[in-house]
C-alpha cells in the first residue's frame, strides 16, 4: 500500500536521526547516576529509535536488523543483569542491591563499587526496557502478526 518513493523526505531524515537518537540513548544510560536520566529513560529513547524505524519504513526493515529471537533474548539478558547484580550482592553478604559489598570482587573501594553497581543495574534495565517496548509496540501495531506495513 505504501509506495516506496512516496515519503522520501521522511525516510531520509529518519536515516539521519536514528543514529543520533541511539547515541543519545546510550549517553542517557551511561550518565544515569550523574545527571538526569537513567536506565528506564535511556531504554525508552533506544526503543523510540526502533519504533521510528518501523513507522517510517515498515516492520520488515526492523526485522532485518533486530529479529524477534534477538529481541526476546535481549529482554531476558536485561532482567538477568539486573537480578544477577542484586543476587550477587546477597551472595557476597549484603542486602539485595547493596552495591558496596561488590568491592570484594571489583578492584575498587566501596564508594566506587557503589558507583559501578549502579551502572551495571542501569545497563540491565536499559536493555530490558528497550526490548520489551519494541515487543509491545510490534504486537499492538500489527495485531500480533509481526508483518506488513503500518497503514
Amino acid at each position, binding site marked *: 500500500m505504501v509506495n516506496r518513493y512516496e*515519503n522520501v*523526505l*521522511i525516510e531520509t*531524515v529518519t536515516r*539521519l*536521526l536514528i543514529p*543520533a537518537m541511539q547515541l543519545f540513548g546510550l549517553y542517557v544510560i551511561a550518565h544515569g547516576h550523574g545527571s538526569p536520566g537513567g536506565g528506564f529513560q535511556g531504554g525508552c529513547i533506544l526503543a523510540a529509535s526502533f519504533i521510528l524505524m518501523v513507522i517510517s519504513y515498515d516492520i520488515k526493515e526492523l526485522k532485518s536488523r533486530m529479529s524477534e529471537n534477538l529481541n526476546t533474548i535481549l529482554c531476558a539478558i536485561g532482567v538477568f543483569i539486573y537480578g544477577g547484580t542484586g543476587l550477587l550482592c546477597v551472595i557476597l553478604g549484603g542486602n539485595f542491591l547493596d552495591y558496596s559489598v561488590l568491592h570484594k570482587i571489583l578492584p575498587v573501594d566501596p564508594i566506587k563499587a557503589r558507583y559501578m553497581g549502579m551502572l551495571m543495574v542501569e545497563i540491565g534495565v536499559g536493555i530490558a526496557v528497550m526490548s520489551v517496548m519494541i515487543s509491545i509496540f510490534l504486537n499492538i501495531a500489527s495485531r500480533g502478526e509481526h508483518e506488513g506495513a503500518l497503514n
Partner: protein
Amino acid sequence: MSILEIISIILILGGLFFFFTATVGLIRMPDYYCRMQATGKGDTLGAVLCLSGLALYNLDSGLSFANIIVSIKIMFIAIFIFIANPTATHAISKAGIDCEVKPWTKKKEVQS
C-alpha cells in the same frame, strides 16, 4: 549589561515573537493545513532562537569548559529541533492528505 546579555535578550525576544505568531495562527487560522504551516514554521524558528539565546546567556557567566559543553548541548537540541520539527509537520500534513481532509475555501457550500 554585557554584550552577550544584550544579544541573548534580543534572540529570546525574537523567539517569543515567533512563538506568539505561531499561537495566534493556531487559534485564528481556518483549517487543518493552515494551522499546520503556522505552528510548524513559527514553533521551529521560535524554539531555535530561544535556545540560541539561552546558549549565549549561559556563556556569560565565564568561558569555562563546563559552560562551553552545556552551550554545545543546547545547540545540539536546537539542531535536532531544526531537523525534526519540519519533518514531523510534513508527515502530519501528508497524513491529512491521505485521509482526504479538504482544504478550506471561501465558498459557502464547501464550508457546510
